[in-house]
């Protein structure tokens, strides 16, 4: 066992060399080829720097400079696992599926560990992910240890499934790269409430990749609650392909972590499909959160809605980059994108970059961005009615976020999000 710890891209490549014989799928030629190819891509690209346009506002040096162990060697025991919200839950500790903490019995669909299912996943793993384009996806492809595989058969209503990810307490920084594959067959539906958390004092990298395939008329609600520990990094990438008449409803709450990126690539691939990407970023002093969305309208008569709200305290920094690409074939596209930031501190900073590329001529597409502080008149109005200043401020912040959250139609998901927002604020006000 070598004791030299490398940082940066080189560190990960070095550990890949040491681990490749122990990573799942080592006997499957196609997995090996996938990992080796990704390693070459990651070797060539390295961690993106701010010279790369897509990373202009997010500096990955704190991640690149850290020296991580792979989680394979320091697997924790699941301490600090939040209480389950419903009946079915898949639990991951340091990126590995933990059956003893999970409860998946009685599900009306197939769900299980990616490491276990790997021999049957050749056609699915990597079907959407683009390791050649996104360096962090190459990193994930090179080192993925596990993940969740979900297949909801045609016409089945899958109900609510929780996906809990926790990082365990550790002296040495750990990194884990789960790969989650989600497929809903024609007319199927599912709600996933994903919650990622970690201990306060541990430095770790959570680098998940989702590949989501929604067949005709399928409906997936995907509520992501990111509450990583204060020293945690989460760099997540979601790929979603949405076929005719299907709906992908994503809401991402970024409320934790030291440096976080929520990157979504969604393709409206079939006519009359719908994509909702909403989210809120609630940032305290010292946090950096980045939401980057790339939405392809690649079929006619599709609708997309994006509303992102960022609340910033102290010296925090928020980023929103949203690109909508309307292909020539995508006539009668109905697209809407709004991102708004509420600066509660003069030291906070938000960077906002909306981008529209429209190649079809019959299109309704609008976008907007606002940045502001709490409205002094609104605050005075509440206080003049006897409401103390702290409560008045929290009411206005919740109201600011409400517009994004009320778009989540699944009640369980919306309640979970509202609870997470209220939890953030009460901690903030305390």
């Amino acid at each position, binding site marked *: 066992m070598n004791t030299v710890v490398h940082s940066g891209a080189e560190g990960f490549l070095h550990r890949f060399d040491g681990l490749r014989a122990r990573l799942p799928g080592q006997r499957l030629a196609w997995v090996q080829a996938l990992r080796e190819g990704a390693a070459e891509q990651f070797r060539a690209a390295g961690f993106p720097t701010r010279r790369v346009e897509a990373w202009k506002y997010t500096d990955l040096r704190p991640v690149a400079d850290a020296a991580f162990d792979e989680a394979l060697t320091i697997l924790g025991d699941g301490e600090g696992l939040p209480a389950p919200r419903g009946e079915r839950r898949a639990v991951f500790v340091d990126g590995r599926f933990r059956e003893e903490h999970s409860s998946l019995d009685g599900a009306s669909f197939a769900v299980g560990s990616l490491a276990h299912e790997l021999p049957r996943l050749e056609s699915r793993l990597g079907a959407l992910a683009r390791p050649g384009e996104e360096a962090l996806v190459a990193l994930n492809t090179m080192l993925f240890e596990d993940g969740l595989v979900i297949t909801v058969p045609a016409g089945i209503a899958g109900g609510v499934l929780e996906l809990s990810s926790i990082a365990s307490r550790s002296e040495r920084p750990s990194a884990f790269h789960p790969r989650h594959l989600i497929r809903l067959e024609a007319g199927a539906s599912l709600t996933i409430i994903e919650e990622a958390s970690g201990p306060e004092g541990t430095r770790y990298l959570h680098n998940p990749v989702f590949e989501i395939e929604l067949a005709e008329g399928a409906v997936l609600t995907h509520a992501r609650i990111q509450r990583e520990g204060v020293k945690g990094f989460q760099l997540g990438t979601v790929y979603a392909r949405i076929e005719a008449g299907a709906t992908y409803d994503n809401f991402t709450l970024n409320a934790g972590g030291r440096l976080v990126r929520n990157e979504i690539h969604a393709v409206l691939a079939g006519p009359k499909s719908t994509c909702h990407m909403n989210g809120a970023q609630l940032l305290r002093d010292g946090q950096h959160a980045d939401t980057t969305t790339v939405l392809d309208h690649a079929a006619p008569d599709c609708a997309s809605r994006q509303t992102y709200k960022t609340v910033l305290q102290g010296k925090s920094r928020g980023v929103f980059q949203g690109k909508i690409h309307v292909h020539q074939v995508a006539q009668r596209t109905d697209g809407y994108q709004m991102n708004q930031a509420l600066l509660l501190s003069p030291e906070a900073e938000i960077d906002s970059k909306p981008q529209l590329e429209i190649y079809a001529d019959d299109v309704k597409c609008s976008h907007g961005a606002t940045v502001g502080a709490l409205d*002094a*008149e*609104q605050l*005075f*109005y*509440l*206080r*003049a*009615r*006897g*409401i*103390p*200043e702290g*409560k*008045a401020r929290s*009411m*206005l912040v*919740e*109201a*600011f*976020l*409400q*517009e994004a959250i009320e778009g989540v139609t699944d009640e369980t998901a919306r309640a979970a999000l509202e609870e997470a927002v209220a939890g953030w604020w009460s901690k903030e006000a305390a």
Partner: protein
Amino acid sequence: MLRIEGLTAEVDGKPILKGIDLEVPAGEVHAIMGPNGSGKSTLSYVLAGREGYEVTGGSATLNGVDLLAMEPEERAAAGVFLAFQYPVELPGVGNANFLRTALNAIRRGKGEAELDAMQFLKLARARLKELQMSEDMLKRGVNVGFSGGEKKRNEVLQMALLRPSLAILDETDSGLDIDALKIVADGVNALRAPDFSALVITHYQRLLDYIVPDKVHVLMQGRIAQTGGPELAKQLEASGYASVQAAA
């Protein structure tokens, strides 16, 4: 009672109130009239504690309590209620939630038990009915999409729920048609009691036909230029503020 002595205040360094002396005994309703720019709204904001209105001298007490030393929410708990000339819209804040939060904050301040959602709803429905307002207004965002008249009625609804000891009505009549005016006036008159006083700020005499004041004060250039009975309002309506100017 409200007692104001030698009150001076400025906005952005510009003196607006130049020495106000005014007493409103408990149980009385006083009107303040005056031309635009005379300081009427400034007086109401200074009493309610709005930021940006700097008191440079004098005092204002309500039942012996120094208002000027308190935060806006403390003044509200002490019994001050300002009905806004332009009620503020609060998108995303439900009117019911807003009203209950305010009512419970005031009740806490008075040492009374807070109302739960059901108790609150019962009370709010009764008040809504008196003000001929639709229950629908509870479900909407505060003042969002309300007509001018609805906003003013929402102010009176808040006043009816919070039961202040001093109500300051800042041009509550502006933008109201005659029916709405009567409803608003009825709402104020219903609160009249030995421990309630009101300062009705208005540009026009019309409102004072429905809320008959005990006294009328004319505010000119930051000072009370003249004080009289209800007949003074009628006189101003006929001859305008120039006559006061000449007399002052």
